[in-house]
């Protein structure tokens, strides 16, 4: 490794960290404003244009807060936990390519990129778990236990969802997965790139990944580890000042990183939704304005599309948070183990059918499985609906009274 290589590596790391940390205030501001919009409120709009400086004010406030350490806490682990939740979130983004230039991105284009991401996201459980334990507080402990069980359970579904991308691209390398998606759609439509989400297996995989993504980052409706109505604030109850801020940052950076992974694996990474290469080839042959325009769009567009997709996914996070109620713990486990994992396994099996025998038997398989599921759930559905309606319609009567 020469000195120049080292310089490029440092530049790549700096750009990635700069992106993650620079987007952080915007994301926090967006969360508050968009949630307010969903709930018919205004949200923070006083400080700076549109309230954009509000996150800075929040950071300054947290910075000057008193830091309180619980008397019975395990001090070492208690102080270590925020760092342990921040580090994997930052490190997980290292293999995500956000542009076509291999000198600038990704930080490390290793041939085990997706596995590296899975490793980092599985390390994210430690911060929460240890914070919950070291606080020596019942609510914190319950939050930590919930978080660890949840993260382990949904890791499986996430692995199965990512396996579709791995299998389809035939590689664990992130850049290979993006390159696979730059080909014409289904091999025939030239102007549209073949994003994985446009294929049936990719669609199912992306849906699966989105649900697992919500659970992995402890977001609503899977925010049981910090359920404020039952556990105060879960694992971060005892934390204040910058340690609390570290958890806060860790959560949002994890959301950005995992959205980046979903963008890369299912939504075509930094590719634009329309393939502009014919225009660019036209520009290459001619002089002047077209040439300049093509050059600018070639340099700027890929990062733009990447960021746009990440923000669209973040909007999805907020939309889900504003729409759905928090699940019960048994519902969470049921969804993870009895719905997502079977769906992921069937999806993976049908993808192998596609790879070995072509798309006709695979689509037939999807139709058969879908029909089976529909028939099975249709048998239960009216019954359930009727039961809830009748219960809701009848006023409460004690048993003795109804017998009279």
């Amino acid at each position, binding site marked *: 490794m020469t000195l120049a290589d080292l310089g490029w590596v440092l530049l790549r790391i700096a750009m990635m960290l700069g992106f993650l940390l620079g987007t952080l205030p915007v994301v926090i501001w967006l969360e508050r404003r968009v949630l307010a919009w969903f709930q018919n409120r205004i949200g923070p709009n006083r400080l700076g244009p549109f309230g954009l400086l509000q996150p800075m004010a929040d950071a300054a406030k947290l910075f000057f807060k008193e830091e309180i350490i619980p008397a019975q806490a395990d001090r070492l682990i208690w102080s270590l936990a925020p760092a342990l939740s921040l580090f994997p979130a930052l490190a997980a983004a290292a293999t995500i390519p956000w542009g076509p230039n291999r000198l600038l991105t990704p930080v490390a284009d290793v041939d085990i990129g997706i596995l590296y991401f899975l490793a980092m996201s599985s390390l994210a459980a430690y911060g929460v778990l*240890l914070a919950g334990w070291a606080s020596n507080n019942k609510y914190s402990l319950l939050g930590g236990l919930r978080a660890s069980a949840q993260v382990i359970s949904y890791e499986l579904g996430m692995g199965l969802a990512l396996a579709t991308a791995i299998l389809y691209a035939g590689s664990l390398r992130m850049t290979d997965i993006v390159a696979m998606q730059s080909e014409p759609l289904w091999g025939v439509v030239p102007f549209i790139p073949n994003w994985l989400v446009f294929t049936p297996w990719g669609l199912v995989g992306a849906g699966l990944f989105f649900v697992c993504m919500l659970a992995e980052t402890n977001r609503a409706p899977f925010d049981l580890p910090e359920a404020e109505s039952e556990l105060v604030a879960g694992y971060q109850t005892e934390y204040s000042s910058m340690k609390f801020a570290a958890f806060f940052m860790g959560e949002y950076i994890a959301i950005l990183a995992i959205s980046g992974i979903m963008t890369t694996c299912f939504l075509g990474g930094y590719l634009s939704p329309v393939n502009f290469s014919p225009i660019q080839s036209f520009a290459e042959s001619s002089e002047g304005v077209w040439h300049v325009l093509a050059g600018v769009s070639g340099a700027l567009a890929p990062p733009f599309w990447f960021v746009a997709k990440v923000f669209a996914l973040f909007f999805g996070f907020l939309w889900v948070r504003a729409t759905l109620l928090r699940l019960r713990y048994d519902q969470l486990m049921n969804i993870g183990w009895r719905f997502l994992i079977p769906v992921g396994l069937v999806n993976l099996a049908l993808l192998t059918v596609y790879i070995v025998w072509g798309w006709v038997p695979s689509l037939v398989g999807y139709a058969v499985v879908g029909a089976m599921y529909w028939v099975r759930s249709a048998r239960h559905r009216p019954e359930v609906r009727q039961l809830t309606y009748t219960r809701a319609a009848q006023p409460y009567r004690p048993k003795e009274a109804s017998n009279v």
Partner: protein
Amino acid sequence: MFEKVLFFLLALIAISTAVGVVANRNPVRSALLLVMNFISLAILYFMLSAQFLGVLQVIVYAGAIMVLFLFVIMLLNLGSPEAIAQERELKRPLAWLVAMGLFSVLMSQALVLASYGTPQLAPDIGTARTIGLVLFTQWAFPLLLVALLLTVGVIGSILLARRRPA
């Protein structure tokens, strides 16, 4: 040179954390030291050009197995001061003697094997593709056995941990 320094550092971490796992009274701290040990081992695997296993080491050991350990420790409240107070040992001479014997036997073998050869560079051996190709052809039957073992383990643990109606 760089490789040797890195090996030395990682070995130092691995040794000290291995000692810490045994010497620490608090099971939570033991578990954390073991996680550190596993991560340093994962980096050593990378140095041995076994990237796939290095990452699997982090995913399986650090990400799943040790989280399960911590989960059970916290669930049974074994990290509480009363539970730690029960742990008074490290004074059984026989155990240390056996361990010293074991170590010297293993070391003698290791020193004999010094002439076995130095590790050679083979960059593309440890990739997922190479291992997968061999795993699903040459080692398909043992792989099935391991899969069966894992299935039995899952079913067995569910049956064990289930609350029976009294």
